[in-house]
């Protein structure tokens, strides 16, 4: 019998990058919408916290994705190993490329924060 890669682990490892993108996206959009829509009524946060929230979310997502994209060891650890080295190698490379692609996605989302102010419709 071949010592195989577990499916759940493979899936999570493979999708780590896009999942971070998705988490970041959900957080910045959801946080922005919630703070702009109901900033003064939310517990714990206020509308003034918006820039910090966006900055921290984007910063940590960028760091995590950079690590995943650059470090084959990290991604390989996430996915697990197999007696079929080609298979593990394939999955790791796909996962790293996906992290790189996600990094682009996160940076593109971040671009808006530099140029545009918080909650206005500028028209």
């Amino acid at each position: 019998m071949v010592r195989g890669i577990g499916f759940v682990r493979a899936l999570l490892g493979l999708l780590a990058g896009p999942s971070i993108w998705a988490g970041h996206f959900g957080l910045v959009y959801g946080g922005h919408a919630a703070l702009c829509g109901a900033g003064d009524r939310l517990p714990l946060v206020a509308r003034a916290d918006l820039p910090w929230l966006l900055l921290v979310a984007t910063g940590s997502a960028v760091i995590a994705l950079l690590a995943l994209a650059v470090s084959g060891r990290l991604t390989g650890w996430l996915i697990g190993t197999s007696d079929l080295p080609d298979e593990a190698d394939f999955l790791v490379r796909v996962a790293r490329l996906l992290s790189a692609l996600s990094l682009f996605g996160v940076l593109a989302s971040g671009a808006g924060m530099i140029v545009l102010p918080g909650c206005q419709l500028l028209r």
Partner: protein
Amino acid sequence: MSDSGISATPRPAGERAELLRIWATPQGWRLPSAVNNTVIGLFYLGAAFAFFLLAGIVALLMRTQLAQGDATFLSQDLYNQMFTMHGTTMMFLFAVPAMEALGVMLLPQMLAARDLPFPRLSAFAIWAYVIGGAVFFSTIFYGLAPKGGWFMYPPLTLTAYQPGDNADFWLLGIGFIEISAIAGAVEIVVGVLRTRPPGMTLSRMPIFGWSMLIFAGMIIFAFPAVILATMLLEIERAFGWPFFTAARGGDPLLWQHLFWFFGHPEVYIIFLPAAGLVSMMVPTFVQTPLIGYRLIVVALIGTGFFSFGLWVHHMFTTGIPSLSLAFFSAASIAVAVPSGIQVFSWIATLAAGRERLRLTTPALFVLGFLFIFTVGGLTGIMVALVPIDLQVHDTYFVVAHFHYVLVGGMVFPLFATFYYWAPAFSRRALSERLGRWSFWLMFVGFNVAFFPMHLTGLAGMPRRVWTYPGDIGWDGLNLLSTIGAYILAAGVLVFVVDLVRNFRPGGGAGNVWNAGTLEWLPNDVYSTRSIPLVTGRYPLWDQPNLARDVEAGAHYLPDAPTGGRETLVTSTVEAEPQYVLQMPGAGWSQVLAATFTAAFFLLLTIKLVWIAAVCGVLAVLFCLVWAWGLDPGPARGKVAVGAGLTLPSYMTGPQSHSWWAMVVLMLVAASLYIAYVFSYLYLWTVSPEVWAPAGAAPLPPLSRPLVAAAAFLAGLGLIVVAGRSLPPPGQRGWVAPIALVVGACLLATAVATEILGHIEMGLEPQATAYAAMVFLAGALAGQVVAAVLVMALFVAARILCARTDRERRNSFDHTLQLARYAVGQSLFGLLLVHGFPRLVA
């Protein structure tokens, strides 16, 4: 895995005859009871193509009306119905089903599996779709067709502005595609992950497998949003719960969020399988492996993810804060990158070819696709930029854009697919001569029809207008578009002629393109003679003797060791053989279940509530009849599958294929619930003033939800106890069925406790969006608990009939799975409904 087991020893005589008998397709009037994937796949594809032709005729009529300004060929009302029908039919009755159909037809062949893992489920989905779709489309003939546009924005689609049943028919039409899409997702996830041939690791899987896997994953997360949206709209139409009515705390934009959270991924749901097919065809055209296989996998997964970050892209003009728009603009830009990767991978593969590209008909369609889709992708970048979209949104520019993307991205690859794969399913290939005519007419016609629309839109013409002033300067462009539309239609007509003249289903014409993947192995009703051991991405190129060995029965499962229909289940990543899956054959229960499901929705639409209820009960009944015959148990023990390998013929727990199907269904349910939670929080940000405790009846005292939670946990506990006390194999028991049913009833009591608590406090669902949301939480919990209750009664009956026991226990395990999910979701619901208002108070 070694090759040691594979040797071409002669197989006993009579094996093939046995396979033919077991897998025989019912003939004559029994044909609808068939479940073979190639047969029902053909029905499915045929029905989808018929809807394509019908919706195309509708489009021609509309183009005729628009050929000149101030025309009166069609009336305003009919035109409004027609564009709604055209969009709805093309998206829901053609594009998604056509892709599902290709999955049903091609996927098992590419994986050399004998059939899909749940043959009757596909058959059920198809019949429900065919019946429901036909009735839905026929409404255009009685002027009852929906007229709210294919995305049906409320408040226009609320009863105040659209009384009558028209809008309900739309909700009906989409109900069927929801059913068949989710059924398809189950089939495809389990099929791709568990029924690949031994040795076909993930990295050796055909790209179409990847694209269908992602397609299915996207369905799991996208469709629930539209299921919830349609539920909300129908509830508001029927009972007046104000989800979308601003005056009572609802918001019309909630619909847009939910609809487009489905609707944008939907475009990629249509495109990804088509792209996968192109990735399969291009290597064959130039007889060389795909360049950038890995990159394409990355592109497909990336597209799948990014496409969920685009939905507000359809809402740039609704007055959302600019920074939010920027996030979505960014994601819309990001999704272009994976498409770029794919386009250039195909170009690179063309360049790498051992042979120069020969311009056969499928190759022409693929090249046409490349051009049209590239144009559509580039205009997609334009509409992704917020300022440009502010001008072109909802104009003919956008009409041009999405036709370039959808016709380019889906219809042209589909026609390439028809020409390329016809020889695998027809005794005769389609005609190259007619094919060229068809291509050139379609390609020229398409561009003549749709390119001018970019300019029409920039000249200011909004979409969905049944007429326009003759003196405003749009005549020439519109006339050109109309001419193009007729040329395009002529191309499709030529294809239909070709189909009638040359398509003869049954058997195949052989590997005419010298392709490298498994669907070109010699095959018959049982699929391939034996299931091959695969060592590369292009087995027919990599293993020159493969076809001969497979046909000689040298590989796995050359016979039918359990005496019935079966296929091989392998591990998810490395495709290690695990067990033999016994599957049901032809039957009527799924056809009847589908018929009554269709009848249920239809009769409900025309408000014949009681007859509808009877049909609904019958539908459930036939589903149970069908499920009664499943879960065969370990009676057959381990069986030899050839090549020296012995495998179990039954599996329970997380390794079994049905466990995976339940997980997929639970993911769907969870996505639906997440969409609900989003809606709850969203409506709160829009109108906090109607939320408890200030703006509504007070919440019930905390003791209420605590009692409900205790009842949920007690019910679940009883079901767990039932699992511990299942009778030994072959025996009956009383403890387990009683515990099971009482447990399920406790769950139902818990739901009732929660709902009654709010009623006692005087909360009325019609009063505010808050109240409607609170009751909806109860309704959603009730829905899952009702399913648990039905399953519990069913399993209890099985235990009493000695059909479920300690070892033959899949049906019990799935009930427990669902009960766990139901309790988890309900407890979260209690937390949200009782906790959130207290938190923000």
